């Protein structure tokens, strides 16, 4: 029904979109968890309130991404996940801890709230660090050697900081008063981690393979690619400029750090996708070699084309319903 050459490409694109949506959306609520130790009890309640209606749906994008990998590229799925067995386990345990801590902290006896707060922070950190670690290992071609592990450790830290940055951006957007001012300070610290992380990844990627190196530095491509770093640089400067002035009167520009952080993530992701395409397991398997049968992909695509717009529609509806500053979170 569909073309066997185009289909894997469409699925790679769909998977890319879900990973990107996941990184931005769960990124901000993981970031809120990472910032927990810096906030006091009342502030933590408000931070939780700001992500309450969203975190569950945000995580579902991870399920979709891994589902698409599983169904569209079964061979790559096995390769990648068995190579990343331990970091995946750490991430899953982190996701479990923070997901349940979120619910338990409000329902457990009052005296037990603190341990659940710690679990929420620990779970968020484990998730963010292991995802960053997997990112690094992926860039390094899924090989476990000392240098690759060292690089992955660096990206682990960088991604955690990036998540805290977008998390701080979210808090600036969703709160006011003292907490908002605090979040501006957090963001000011976080932005340097983001610069470091994006710098490290950009420096390392072309060194991984000659192919990527050529893709970056040969002539027509370099002109195509140049806007990416330039735009990112401009964004960082403007973000820094904005953060020094926030909060402004009438809450103007409170949305900017969050939107700017999102834009940075999109740019970084775009650069990575450009470099690794057409490989799904770096330098080993292309998306066409790994794709499942055309017939199975067609079946999924038909459904996806109908359902994805609906999903996006009601996701937007939810963000619209819970727009504005976060207030007390309760079931009524």
């Amino acid at each position, binding site marked *: 029904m569909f073309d066997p050459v185009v289909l894997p490409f469409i699925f790679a694109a769909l998977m890319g979109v879900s990973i990107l949506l996941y990184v931005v959306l769960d990124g901000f609520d993981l970031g809120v968890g990472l910032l927990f130790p810096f906030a006091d*009890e*009342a502030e933590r*309640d408000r931070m939780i309130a700001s992500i*309450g*209606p969203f975190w*569950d*749906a945000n*995580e*579902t994008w*991870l*399920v*979709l991404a*891994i*589902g698409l*990998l*599983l*169904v*569209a590229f*079964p061979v790559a799925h*096995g390769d990648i*996940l*068995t190579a990343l*067995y*331990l970091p*995946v386990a750490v991430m*899953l*345990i982190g*996701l*479990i*801890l923070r*997901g*349940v801590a979120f*619910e*338990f*902290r*409000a*329902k*457990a*006896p*009052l005296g037990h709230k603190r341990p659940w707060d710690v679990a929420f922070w620990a779970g968020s950190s484990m998730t963010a660090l292991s995802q960053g670690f997997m990112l690094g290992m992926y860039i390094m071609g899924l090989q476990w050697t000392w240098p690759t592990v060292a690089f992955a450790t660096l990206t682990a830290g960088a991604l955690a900081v990036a998540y805290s940055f977008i998390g701080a951006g979210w808090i600036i957007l969703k709160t006011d008063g003292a907490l908002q001012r605090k979040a501006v300070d957090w963001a000011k610290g976080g932005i340097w981690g983001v610069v470091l992380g994006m710098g490290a990844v950009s420096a390392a990627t072309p060194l991984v393979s000659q192919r990527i190196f050529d893709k970056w530095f040969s002539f027509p491509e370099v002109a195509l690619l140049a806007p990416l770093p330039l735009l990112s640089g401009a964004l960082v400067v403007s973000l820094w400029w904005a953060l020094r002035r926030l909060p402004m009167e009438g809450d103007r520009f409170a949305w900017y750090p969050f939107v700017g952080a999102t834009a940075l993530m999109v740019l970084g992701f775009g650069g990575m996708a450009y470099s690794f395409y057409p490989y799904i397991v770096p330098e080993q398997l292309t998306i066409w070699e790994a794709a*499942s*049968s055309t*017939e*199975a992909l067609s*079946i*999924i695509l038909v*459904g*996806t084309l109908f359902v*994805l717009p609906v*999903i996006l529609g*009601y*996701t937007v509806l*939810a963000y619209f*319903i*819970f727009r504005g500053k976060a207030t*007390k*979170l*309760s*079931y*009524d």
Partner: protein
Amino acid sequence: MDTLLLSRIQFAANISFHILFPTITIALGWVLLFFKLRFNRTGERKWMDLYMFWVKVFALSFALGVVSGITMSFQFGTNWPGFMETVGNIAGPLLAYEVLTAFFLEAVFLGIMLFGASRVPGWLHTTATFLVAFGTTMSAFWILVLNSWMHTPAGHEVVDGVVVARDWWAIIFNPSMPYRLAHMLLASGLTVAFLIAGLSAYRWLRGDRAPATATGLRVGVMLGAVLIPIQILAGDMHGLNTLEHQPQKVAAMEGNWETQGNVPLLLFALPDEDTRSNAFEIGIPSMASVILKHDPAGVVPGLNDFVAEDGTVMHPPVAPVFWSFRVMVGVGMLMLVVAWAGAFLMWRRGAESLPRPYLWGLTGMTFAGWVATLAGWYTTEIGRQPWLVQGVLTVEQAVGDIASGMVLSTLLAYMAIYVALLAAYIGVLFHLARRGGVLYEPVSSPGMQPAE
């Protein structure tokens, strides 16, 4: 221990933990919708109280279901790469449809259902509640389609060792799907019925005489009393279906070694695979033949038919299947007695004056549904061994090539967390029951309350 065994234990541990929470959320979603509609209709406060209490249990169970479900979806790749490589063309689309049509629906509308009541019009909130309930049921539908297909594959063809779909209608409505779906949805209903009855009884015993408590008791017991006979019927039909498609499983359930007539229904026995016979049999003569063939002389297949010439055993391990089946049916019978006794007592003396021992009995059965559900799944899944997909793929062919030490370490970590979380979950449920579901007093900073 080897990687295969460890991976199996890890998979079983994860799915056993996961299934506990969907079992609750599938039916509780509909019960919440019922509470909400009753409130919309009558305006009686007690229905709102019930809604507010049980929505907390729902939110907590849902969170546990989601996080353990995410673990499940990674397991296929981390531990069973051969599964997707062989049957991915069928399992893939089914799992994709589950994510697309169910997971997003539940997750997005859950936010509106839990926190949106004061932000959206009443009808939209009721709709959100409906969509969440609908979404959980859809999840169950898709995953059970897949699981049933693994037990009774249909509509496919094997080309070069890879399974290719031929007829999606036959794949989705494979022979055991309707039975398994019905039986599982009823199991979920029963689990929730006894959960509601049990916690309400506990509240009553603790002196909580709110109207919501008595109504909760009534709803729980009545729901149980209605569903349990249907479940027994559905289970019986499921068994007949299994007899047709997986006779070796039924032979293990019955502990029947030889193909013969007048097979007794064993109430107790110790199956022994070395001697290939049972010790200490206590049974009702010819009863198994009557149940399975509707004829005392009916010939029922035995386990010895499933041993190859060279001695390879192609039937499941007998004792675990035999015993988990008895646990499930035993709990089912207990549910029948308890629910009908309760319905009778309520009819004679009202929900407000049930005898204390009966209420304690209900409290003790709060999680009876879990026990039966797990036992049922163990029967089903262990009964499929050594196959992963009946007749197509064995477990051994699907397992990934990972160092057993790694599997062992993750297994131990998961186990530790699951035990702790289960204890916390049960503890918090009873804690909520003691508080009668009343919210915390407002704390320190004005205008701020802990997130509920």
